[in-house]
């Protein structure tokens, strides 16, 4: 994806997501308008069931908007099919999940190399090793996820998300399954690497302190976003 430095990294306009359920159609997102500049760090907070995860899935191209426009780096996701969305994600969007979602049958190194292999990189394992070093897990490269602690697994997941140097990082409750000390260490790492690669960050969290580390804090309530408030430019870095 070639990004125009002028265009926002993430742009949603009047996005609605309506999904079928046993009780009929349910409005998950209603009229969401959002703009995240390149290099910004934005936190999305809100109670459980408010639509935060769905918002992230729409941005990642994992969920289709029922109506409205979703642009990533200026590219409209509406006209892309599933495979085109997958290719968009590869190298452009790094996702960090709450449950890590490492491939259990691959080593840490192989997990981190995966997105690079999908991109067709010339030497994915060299780059993967470097990414593991960045998160302090170089010596654990040949360990399987079951042999790593929760914090280590999440660091591997961060390395995997960042190894292709994506323009956008999406993190969905990345510390949700970690204790507070480990979570803090993981978040420090995430923010440091984000700053290092000047990536745009969209962070889903219900941790207020964590949210304040971001330049913007958006509140989701019943599928809608409260108006955006930008903090001082110094806080973005």
């Amino acid at each position: 994806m070639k990004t125009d430095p002028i265009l926002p990294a993430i742009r949603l306009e009047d996005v609605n997501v309506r999904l079928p359920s046993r009780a009929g159609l349910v409005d998950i997102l209603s009229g969401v308008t959002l703009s995240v500049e390149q290099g910004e760090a934005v936190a999305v907070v809100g109670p459980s069931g408010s639509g935060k995860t769905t918002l992230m899935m729409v941005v990642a191209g994992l969920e289709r908007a029922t109506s409205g426009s979703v642009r990533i780096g200026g590219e409209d996701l509406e006209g892309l099919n599933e495979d085109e969305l997958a290719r968009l994600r590869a190298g452009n969007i790094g996702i960090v999940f709450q449950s890590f979602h490492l491939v259990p049958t691959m080593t840490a190194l192989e997990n981190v190399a995966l997105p690079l292999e999908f991109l067709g990189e010339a030497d994915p394992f060299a780059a993967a090793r470097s990414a593991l070093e960045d998160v302090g897990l170089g010596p654990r490269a040949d360990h399987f996820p079951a042999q790593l602690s929760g914090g280590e697994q999440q660091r591997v997941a961060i390395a995997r998300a960042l190894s292709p140097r994506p323009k956008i990082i999406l993190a969905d409750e990345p510390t949700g399954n970690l204790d507070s000390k480990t979570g803090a260490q993981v978040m420090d790492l995430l923010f440091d690497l984000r700053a290092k690669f000047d990536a745009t960050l969209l962070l889903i969290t219900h941790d207020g302190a964590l949210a304040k580390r971001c330049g913007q804090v958006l509140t989701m309530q019943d599928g809608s976003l409260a108006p955006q408030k930008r903090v001082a430019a110094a806080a973005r870095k």
Partner: protein
Amino acid sequence: MSDTVLKGGGQRGSPTLALPLELRLALRDLRTSLGGFIVFVACIALGVMAIAGIGSLAGALKEGLAREGQSILGGDVAVSVVHRRVSEGEKAFLQARGAVSEVATLRAMARPAEGRRNALVRIKAADAAYPLFGAVALGEGGAQSYKSTGTAAAERLLLERLQISLGDTIRIGDADIRVTGVLEREPDQLSARPAFGPRIIMSLATLEATGLIQPGSLIRWRYRVKLADARAEMLKTFRADLERQFPDAGFSVRDRRDPNPRVSRIIDRFSQFMTLAGIATLMIGGIGVANAIAAYLARKRATIATFKCLGASGATIVRIYLIEVFLLAAIGTAVGLVAGALFPAAVVLVAGDVLPVYLPRGPQPLPLLLASFYGFLTALLFVLWPLGNARDVPPALLMRQNVSDEPSRPRLPYLVAAGVCAAALAGMAIAGAESRYLAAWSMVGLAALFVFYLGVGYAVERLARRVARPRMPELALVRASLSGPGSLARPVVLSLGAALSLLAAVSLVNTSLMKEFRTNIPKQAPSYYMLDIPREKIDSFREIVRTVEPNARFDRAPMLRGRIVRLNGARPDEKKAAPNARWVLNGDRGLTYADAVPEGSKLVQGDWWREDYAGPPLVSFEAEIAEGLGLKLGDTVSVNVLGRTLKARIANLRAVDWESLAINFVMVFSPNALAKAPHNFLATVTLPEDAGAAREAQLTQALSDEFAGVTALRVRDAIDAFRAIAERVMAAVRAAGGLTLVVGAVVLAGALGVAHPRRIRETVIFKTLGATRARLVAAHLIEYGLLALVAGLAAGALGTASAWAIVTLVMDAAFTFSATAVLQAIGLASALVLIFGAIGTWRVLGASPARQLRRTAG
């Protein structure tokens, strides 16, 4: 995706091979999962082994026959004719082309010089040049023990039957012959027609002394030629020259490339049947393949979703898992091919003495190649559906837990591809079969089998859903298990049902056939066929029968042998004959003439000729065979009899009751066509039911005293011999069914294994909620018992229906039901399901609830 070359040999975790991405990921995935695919590999291996094994054995037998063609045939070419010896001109033709050996074969009665016993024997009378290839194996007596006039070598069986010793004298026809050797094996034994009675070999001069060589006698004269120029192309030249010079001689010609076409046909037919059984085995194994892959891909849904989040397209996902399937299929196929290739060697080890030829040691490439195609195609057919579902795993699965876990139908291209695979499999089976008609119906039957058992399984699930929730907790658990997602109804019923219905059908067909052989046929069949009764003595023959057994029924007919050489002017090999009629064109047939419709026949079309008819020769043809040969009223048939060609017009068509075993012929001529030709009579004698062995012996003795040259063929002995052959064939079919059952058991074990994790989760929850072990065991036993009963009953029903259709419609015999066969099917199903189920239950109850609950909490 472009190929990625990875550098840095020696770096841990970095592969140094240049492999495509999908292959790399597939290998990575398989390295920790291989152990879970034992069922997959076993299912493919067993099916491939069956097809490869039978194909290898058939190929080895035919290669052995071709290699030993000269010995088996007794020459490079063999020319045979019935009723007469070759003329001087014909002999000169043969002798101009190489060394010639003359052999006569016939049936006759032998009795000891002292004593009243007699026995049917198969006589081979040979000239001094015999054998041109190989040697006669004699147990006792020297190599010359049968070559002197008045001596013979006989099978030990004859010595036992006549209660004589080596050196004693027997009487055949008008000659006293001393048995001076024990005959073990002749090199050309396999090329002979099947016949009853012990074998005896003598010189032509000895045969002449018996007085059995008479005009019209049923003697087959064989002339083996060792060609001076034995190149393969000369075999064709020989046949062409012989046909050109002697078009009306009525010769039957074979050459060393196919020394016994009848045996080749038997090998082909048996191989075809067993290959179809092997394909059925492979199809049933395919269920195991489908279950294994579906369960594996279900476990991989999160991984697949992760891949998609990281940028993998749906096509990449399909390629990765298709490669894994291909690699597993390759392992299974390789195992099956090795086992199949070794099958001929195993047969030699177990039954080498019984085999008619030495089997070559090397593998048979073509059957192995065919078996591997079947293996891969089957694997592909059964994985396309779950693979198509895997392609569509939504990446959102990782974030939203309420994304449905139930796979839906895959996209249309996968269904079409599966259809193409199924068509390719069926097409291969049909194209490679000797009888494409039978193969096509077998494929239809196989598809119907699957649909039937899927339907039965589905019906069980629906019925369980509709039944009101029982009050008894154990029954409620059973109902939930049978009706809910992951129900075992379809896998259990399908995996067992197919194999059990085959076994039940075989058992019922066998029961019906054996009853036919033991009871029905003997009731209506004559007691004896009497062959070669001199025409001028037929009346006195009948008088003796009437004198000794006044209540015996006596039927007679003139009999000659001849070959069909033209049908409506066309040669038989130019005629496309239906499978049920083709046998009439192979070799010579019994011919007769009559001035009235023979008993046991009924006119279905046309009219019978007048008693004093003197016009152009007419023939009455058996209606079914005429239809199979495409003949109708007014068509012409030319037969060669005694070296002359007789052309007759079809005047009528008859229906014949062959099962009665009464005297019947495919062709009956008008008397003016054959009455003047030299011939003997054939008669049947049917003794009353109360005639015991003593009266039977008295009659045969009286007849053999007066008519030493007449051969008495005891029908019960022939029926017993056929029954023994039928039993052996059934045993082989049962073995094929047994292999299918083994595969069914493997598939069943796989299906229960797939359900195992769910069972553990359920059991843990039930235990947490207060269910005792006894209650859980009872629930499992009831569930498995019900499924076994359904599978067994369905198999019994389908097996009964199939057996009825085969016995009544194909074999045209009476169907006999046997509850034993059905009960055996139910019993086997119960045993298998309960054994595997019990193992699973024991493991489930042993699972630690705490560990399970911690695992699912995350």
